[in-house]
């Protein structure tokens, strides 16, 4: 082949070999460098960070004013007025650590923009800055707020003045969860939630009343709206609680999510996302969990679509959220577990998402269903996704119950595993073919006792053979 024949005369190939050689030596692995997990992780981190940088303009339009106000409040006012200030409708309604974080951010922002015309954060204008440094540091500061707090989940609260859809949910409790949120690469990164209004009268003026005021600011909306009725079909999405993984370890997903307002898409979505994250870890252990994860993640993703409703975001929604994620998840899980992953009914349900998407994007008017039902698409999306998510949740208890039964493997099965391993099958192949969990297979392969039993059996068999042959003779 010409390429390889000419390879020796190509100087850069020699250099590439040297680079690879060094890399191989340092990682102590053979030349399958691209499959090394740390490489994949590194590439994934860089890729996702780059993508988020690219998406900065998408944040600017709504969230900037809210955070600008918080930066201004924490920077300019003394601590005891942070939760009392009402110069802007967007009062601070996150717990104190968040407020201190905004304070630090405001400080760093202030020092970097010293040599520009804006000297006070209260006079910052969110747009039309033409000097390049300013335009970088502004969105970057804004951006760090989201990434650092939310661990790659951009759950944001903002108020949409011009929105005609009452998107009204909150993720307040998730701020309290912090480290227990599992990082997942699902499309939840592109979320933005909306807030139904922060207008609460502030009563307390004394200094020692700051703490209860802060608490009240954070939780007043929740306290008030827990009274509101939550319609049927949406409570199914109130995710969280404890999910017991296999092997006895439990992971708390969310400490109880409240619903603010009348819409609950993102609750369902975040319930789905929350569930999806946990299951992301578990889906590699059992095929059933992989199936449930796949189904839930697709439905959960779709349920977030109404939140990204500007026309600019349509291709992003479609391309990333559904196709890339679906394709990638399907391929990875298919490689792990083999086909097929979803039942016919589940496939049919997922196909039904397509006309629903069209309805959502185009609206009932353009599809000829009349102008009198402007909320029809949203409602249908809610109900449809609720069905899917509830179904997904319903699949889990049986799996865990079955898991509790300790079925012991017979010696035949164990010998079969050993034989397959000798033939050269990997643990994943063996587990797939025999329908067992991978740790089980691994244990069998490495257990001393089983090996001893195998030797005994082979001993007996050889002795039986020799006695047979002796008898034949």
């Amino acid at each position: 082949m010409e390429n390889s024949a000419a390879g020796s005369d190509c100087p850069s190939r020699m250099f590439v070999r040297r680079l690879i050689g060094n890399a191989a030596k340092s990682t102590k692995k053979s030349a399958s460098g691209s499959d090394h997990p740390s490489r994949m992780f590194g590439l994934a981190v860089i890729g996702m960070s780059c993508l988020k940088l690219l998406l900065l303009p998408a944040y600017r339009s709504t969230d900037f004013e809210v955070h600008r106000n918080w930066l201004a409040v924490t920077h300019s006012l003394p601590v005891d007025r942070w939760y009392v200030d009402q110069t802007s409708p967007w009062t601070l309604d996150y717990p104190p650590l968040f407020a201190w974080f905004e304070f630090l951010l405001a400080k760093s922002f202030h020092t970097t923009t010293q040599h520009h015309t804006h000297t006070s954060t209260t006079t910052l204008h969110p747009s039309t800055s033409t000097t390049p440094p300013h335009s970088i540091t502004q969105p970057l500061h804004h951006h760090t707020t989201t990434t650092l707090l939310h661990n790659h989940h951009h759950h944001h609260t903002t108020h949409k003045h011009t929105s005609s859809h009452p998107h009204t949910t909150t993720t307040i409790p998730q701020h309290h969860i912090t480290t227990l949120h599992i990082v997942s690469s699902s499309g939840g990164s592109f979320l933005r939630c909306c807030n139904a209004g922060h207008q609460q009268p502030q009563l307390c003026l004394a200094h020692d009343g700051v703490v209860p005021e802060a608490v009240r600011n954070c939780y007043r909306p929740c306290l008030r709206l827990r009274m509101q009725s939550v319609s049927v079909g949406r409570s199914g999405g109130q995710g969280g609680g404890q999910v017991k993984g296999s092997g006895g370890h439990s992971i708390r997903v969310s400490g109880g999510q409240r619903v603010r307002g009348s819409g609950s898409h993102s609750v369902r979505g975040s319930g789905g996302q929350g569930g999806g994250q946990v299951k992301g870890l578990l889906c590699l252990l059992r095929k059933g969990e992989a199936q449930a994860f796949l189904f839930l993640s697709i439905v959960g993703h779709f349920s977030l679509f109404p939140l990204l409703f500007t026309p600019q975001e349509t291709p992003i929604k479609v391309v990333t959220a559904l196709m890339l994620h679906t394709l990638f998840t399907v391929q990875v899980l298919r490689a792990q577990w083999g086909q097929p992953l979803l039942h016919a009914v589940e496939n049919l349900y997922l196909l039904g998402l397509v006309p629903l998407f069209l309805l959502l994007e185009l609206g009932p008017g353009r599809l000829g269903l009349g102008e009198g039902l402007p909320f029809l698409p949203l409602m249908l999306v809610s109900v449809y996704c609720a069905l899917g998510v509830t179904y997904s949740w319903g699949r889990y208890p049986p799996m865990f119950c079955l898991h509790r039964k300790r079925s012991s493997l017979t010696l035949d099965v164990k010998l079969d595993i050993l034989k397959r391993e000798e033939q050269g099958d990997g643990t994943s192949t063996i587990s797939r073919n025999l329908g067992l969990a991978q740790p089980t297979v691994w244990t069998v392969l490495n257990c001393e006792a089983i090996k001893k039993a195998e030797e005994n059996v082979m001993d007996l068999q050889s002795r039986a053979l020799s006695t047979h042959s002796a008898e034949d003779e």
Partner: protein
Amino acid sequence: MLNKVSNTAMVSLAAILVRWCVSLHPYSGQGKPPMYGDYEAQRHWQEVTVNLPLAEWYANTTDNDLQYWGLDYPPLTAYHSYLCGVAARKLDPRFVALHESRGYESDAHKLFMRYTVLLADLLLFFPAAYCMMQVLGKWRAGRQEFVCLLLYPGLYLVDHGHFQYNAVSLGLFVLAVAALSSNRDCLGTVLFCLALNYKQMELYHALPFFFYLLGVCFRQGGILGFMWKLIKLGFCVVTTFTVVWLPFASDATVLAQAVHRLFPFERGLFEDKVASVWCSLSVVVKVKALVDNKNMALICLLSTVVCMLPSSLHLFARPTPRHFRYALLNASLVFFLLSYHVHEKTILLAAIPACMLVSEEPFMAAWFLTVSTVSLLPLMIKDGLTVPLLGLTVAFVALTHYYLLPGTQKVARKTSLWVWMRRTYFLSLAGLMLLGGAAVLVPPPPKLPDLFPVLLAIYCCGHFIFFCLYFHYCQFTIKYNSASSNNTHTANASNNKQQRKVKSN
């Protein structure tokens, strides 16, 4: 682990995603009256082509003021603008209302324009990259070229950010190269003529095409074979040009005016701060002041032709697809460095051939692509696209290290030259970061307002000269076996020759 179809689909989807994310950012000239930028130029061309008769498209009339973004690309661009303009008029007549829509800017219009670029990309560039992958698959390459072609940041930063339709002409160009590499010469000729008739900048690639096809003709065996091939190719060229220019051919003045618009010599030696030799020289020697435009144009022409000759003649002597791709890269680099009126965006014409060579020269091609992306920084700063450019450059370097370089599984050998080269590579990246960071963050001294863009341009120019020499060296040292199957033309011309041993891949 993942099969090829889903890999291809995922790379394509990722490419669409990054393109759309870049298009969320500002375009050139956004909110900057009176002239705005390239975006307004494209919108204006839609307005002109939709509202005015064809004879007036290139003419300076009361309705068509050529000083305000006059049409200066060949007819295919005009036809494309016409189609887009018709669609625009259907959506909202205010987009292309004659005279009143000057400087029209709105979110809906931006969305529409961004969609037209994405559509052009999807219809032409993606299939072209796919065809290239299929053609190169014969020689166990192709996948890395596919990834590079789709994910090279410079192209979609200019197309989807700054706002242009380079993907159309470059897509046609890549298709032409793929066609020629798979022995479909007439198809390749037609495609290249179409690319040329979309943007006259494709003339940068015209010489390699010419010499390659001439070399192929000479290898046909016998004077009859030569003549027949020549006639076929000539016929393709003439037909394509006729079909494209026919609507303009009814009137000689219209034709003359159109041609005059395509090759403006009044514009000057270089625009802005571009990484060409003349711009770098002019820091030391005021070239623009010493020599007038016409003589300068002659000097450029002469120097370009002289530097082009080695690579082109070598290609003529050895017309194989592999030599062809190297020659394309060499020709476009020489043109970029030495030609008249070079723009920063012209580096794309060299970057795309480099993308097609990435499996042969992974390290050098990737290095070149990185430098070429960063050389677009001054342009991107003006457009407000700094953050995407920086982010995407980092991502591309990561792609190089995690995907392109490990893809070549060879055992390393130690030579002092390559130790030095590796250190130079990291130094070069550090220099790029430093200069790029300075250009973005550091306010320049008041006496030298363009200090950092000029420094960056000179730095990149040095790199480009080095790459030009290196790739020339590579082209001249490719092992050439006239009987190898990479050179399919000699395999076909077996009538009057003796039997040869054909090497199998």
